[in-house]
């Protein structure tokens, strides 16, 4: 076991874990932030998506030892009051069915819109194809990303 200091959602956390422990399990089991989900453990489903220094990353495949001095953002920290334009768009489009994958979807979308603030529908479909939604809410995710882009533009 080793001690690591992590900066998560602007808070410092000290955790005593094995160096190969993925960020996903540090967040869920040690820091008790449950919004980041386990889906596959091999970076294929996107349920565990977080931001590292503002960029989307699959937390299930990031060992804690690689995160020194990185700024980690989870779905809980995306906005102070759950009012990030992507979150608002998700509620307005009634995207969620079971809801399990949606935190990861939102984190992917928020990061994507930072790099491409005015994406085409095809670009959205490609950018979001790393996130699986088993309820198949894909049509609404697509619409919500378009809506979120409009909201971000207005800000």
């Amino acid at each position, binding site marked *: *076991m080793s001690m690591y200091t992590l900066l998560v959602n602007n808070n410092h956390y000290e955790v005593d*874990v*094995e160096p190969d*422990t*993925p960020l996903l*399990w540090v967040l*869920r*089991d*040690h820091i*008790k*932030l*449950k*919004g*980041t*989900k*386990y*889906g*596959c*453990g*091999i970076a*294929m*489903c996107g*349920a565990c998506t977080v931001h590292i220094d503002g960029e989307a990353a699959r937390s299930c495949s990031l060992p804690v030892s690689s995160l020194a001095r990185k700024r980690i953002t*989870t*779905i*809980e920290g995306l906005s102070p009051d*759950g009012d990030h334009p992507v*979150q608002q768009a*998700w*509620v307005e489009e*009634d995207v*969620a*069915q*079971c*809801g*399990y*994958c*949606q*935190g990861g979807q*939102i984190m992917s979308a928020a990061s994507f819109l930072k790099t491409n603030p005015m994406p085409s529908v095809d670009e*959205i*479909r*490609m950018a*979001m*194809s*790393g*996130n*699986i*939604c*088993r*309820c*198949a*809410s*894909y*049509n*609404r*995710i*697509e619409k919500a990303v378009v809506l979120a882009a409009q909201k971000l533009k207005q800000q």
Partner: protein
Amino acid sequence: MKKKIDRRGFLKVSALSAGGMLIGFNLFSSCKNSAKLPDDISKLNYKDFNAYIQIAPSGAVTIYAPNPEIGQGVKTSLPMLIAEELCVSWDSVLVKQANLDEAYYRQMSVGSTSILMGWLPLREVGATARQMLVNAAAQQAGVAPSKCTIKEGIITCDGNISIGIGEVVEEAAKLEIPTDVKLKDAKDFTIIGRNIKNVDANNIVTGKPLFGLDYEYDGKKIACMMRAPFGYKLKSFDATEALALQGVVDAFSFMQNSIAVVAEDTFTAMKAIKLIKPVWEATKRAADSEKENVKIKSLLQDSKYDLIQSTGNVDKAFASAEATIEQVYETPYLPHSCMEPMNFFAHVTDDWIKLAGPIQTPQNALNRVANALKRDKKDITLELTRIGGGFGRRLFGNYAPEAAIISHKSKYPIQLVYSREEDMMGGIYRPAISYKVSGAIKSNQVSAYKLRQVGSTSLKGRFANRFPTGAIPNVRLESIRNKSSITTGAWRAPISNVYAFAEQCFLDEVAFKLKKDPIAFHLELIEKAKKSDNEHLVYEPERMEGVIKLLAKKANWGNQSEGVYQGFSQYFSHETYAAEVAEVELRNGIPVITRVICAIDCGLVVNPLGAKNQVVGGIIDGIGHAMYSDFCIKDGRPTVTNFDRYRLIRMNETPQVECHFVQSNLAPSGLGEPSLPPAGAAVANAIFAATGVRITKQPFIKNKEVFG
């Protein structure tokens, strides 16, 4: 509509000590005479009542929703029924998930039945409470209740005195329960039929801990497990390396053929289970899906079968046919792949057992734990969490007794967590099923229809007398069970999900052979069904005709733009009628599914927004699994165990789906499943229209002629 029901029987009302009114009710049975409501909201029990409504002095209404939410929206749509009759504004309603205790009757989400079963009882509860509030307000204003109206939680007496429901809750709670209340007319609905968003939307988008895997408990350890391959036994195992890992507290075998490790945290438990060295021993039942396919093929020709339905004289019609058509359709075993892997919490002590987690059949889970540990059901409590996808998998709660046994053996409160690999390997799969469908043609009409199912499940009687019975004079349905050690169970729209693929691809092929337009051919068949004197038909041909006609109009059937190829399919299940047109375009010669248009008749649509979400999701789910999901079992183990090699549909492969509802005031039927069954056939038929190739085997993507 006036209904006389003894409402005293199934609901009770009392005042809460902190103020406000509490209504407790049983949905499908009467309350016991001795049943008493608690006077404190924190002491709700579900022994005597299976759901509650609390009305606070502020006028706020809290409904403790009785059905587990698996993403199908009942946590929204069922409370809408109560709120509608209560005549309150939806904004003043808060919905909370009720927990399970013993004697909680039919608390499960299965077979798209929640809305069908709740339609009248929930409205009656709401109407009764509304009448009591109105009676109390009338008393206070000194007018007759008939002079009072109620709207959005405000009671207006004699046209000028306004009283909020919160102001009269305490008085209302003391009144006698009226036995003759009036339900609202459909034309007066203000909540039913409105687009109401998912009640948990804000919690979901902010990452609140709602799901089973998010469950926290002091001193909780994590357990991971492995089980013998299908048809194998556990001979021995070596846990030395696993136990040497820091944080691992126990490792043992249980339930004969499974091994568990218990650790301080999830990552350690997942690491440790991989370090276990088991020795499996093959039995005669060692499973291999390729070998099963060979057996299934021979059973398709076997002379012995179970007869599910026989109408007319099929053999005679085939003997006198001018032509016959026969086709075989094949579908593989499929895992459910819920995004939240199976998991369950259990704390087994000498005095009590606490269970918590995501399950569609809580009562059954509780019974299984009681049986497994030989304990009194009274000592067991079960807390429900939100469920990260069901699709049928969480009806089969084997993970609940597994968790309880691991807790019992290790003496720790534990949460059993399946890794994705364990979830996919230890599945309760959709059965692998093949169909042989044959048709006899005489005078350019179908004179007989014969369908044989062979699979690791039986074709049940409820499939009898569905379409095309009534439309074709001679029909025979046959079933042969292929015995297998591979565990199977319900998978979204059980059997229908593959049965519709066979039936609707076959009828498309028949239409082509008869040189008839597929939709015109279906309407012609339905016309015959409308005139049929067969009393056993389980579907209404008129409603089937209605959805097809609506679909043909909305899809602009027969007038598609150049380069767009349409395929049609329709199917009746779960009391709901669904008809779909899939459109494909060829890109570099490969078919791409661009759009699906769907028409649905599910009676009155309670929540159009939620209903549309269900229908669209069901169609994409049906297309995704028909197109991409390939699953084989070799040496008792699936050959794919995670989403790298097991393919689920992704956003860039998803068509735009349009959904249209038939306007209806008939009692609503469910929507979690019925849009899925026709989807695969609509796509296969569109691919035929585009390429001239009949795809008869799932997953379609493996068809080299079409997809290269």
